[in-house]
């Protein structure tokens, strides 16, 4: 399934080894973060305790996007699951590092 917010953000969902994978393409900002929030909300209703955010094609993220990621992490942990960030680009990785999220979240290269 693919859902878009105009041309700015595309979220493609798939499964990988029992985990729900949300592949983000585009930009994650105050306008598009609610789309990710909605996908995470749906994931919380499903059986999979693990959500993977594939960030390889994410071209921009700001504090609103980071807050959505933090919220997703907390919500999943509360339900016994966890969040994995997969393949963040250099800029995203830098923001995760400076905000300390790299230490709190599981990040796959």
């Amino acid at each position: 399934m693919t859902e878009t917010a105009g041309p700015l953000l595309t979220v493609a969902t798939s499964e990988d080894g029992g985990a729900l994978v949300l592949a983000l393409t585009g930009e994650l900002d105050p306008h598009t973060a609610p789309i990710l929030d909605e996908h995470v909300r749906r994931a919380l209703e499903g059986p999979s305790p693990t959500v993977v955010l594939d960030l390889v094609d994410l071209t921009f993220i700001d504090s609103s996007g980071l807050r959505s990621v933090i919220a997703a992490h907390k919500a999943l942990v509360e339900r016994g699951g966890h969040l994995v960030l997969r393949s963040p680009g250099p800029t995203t990785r830098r923001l995760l590092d400076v905000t300390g999220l790299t230490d709190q979240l599981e990040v796959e290269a």
Partner: protein
Amino acid sequence: MTLDIDDTEVLTGAVIRLVIPADARFLRIARLTAAAIASDLGFSLDAIEDLRIAVDEACAAVITDASPESELSLVYLPAIDGRSIAVEGTCTNEGGSASGPIPMHPVAAELLDLTTTSHAVWSHDEGRSFRFDKVVEGPGAGT
């Protein structure tokens, strides 16, 4: 408080003005403009990314609670030496708000600290405004 660009120290290069609706949907245009200017100045890719983030965070801070008809006026002030840029923005809002610094989410404030040399975001009688400066270190700015 009003923004008077004639008083800025960096008004030696081009002045680029952009007016967009005060809606998060249009932040991308502000970011694209910033990236285009920074690229034209020869900023490095990291510096361009910093400027995109700074513009996004500052704009997002001033359009919060803006009325639907509000506009966000942006002025990009690249220095003639190509080593710095200042960006100013004002979001007018009918009724204005109490004057003073605008409290920002800690993550947003952290990103502004990271990506700018100095910054300020404040409210006033006519709405909310910001100004930040970005000075690029190193020879050529684009290396």
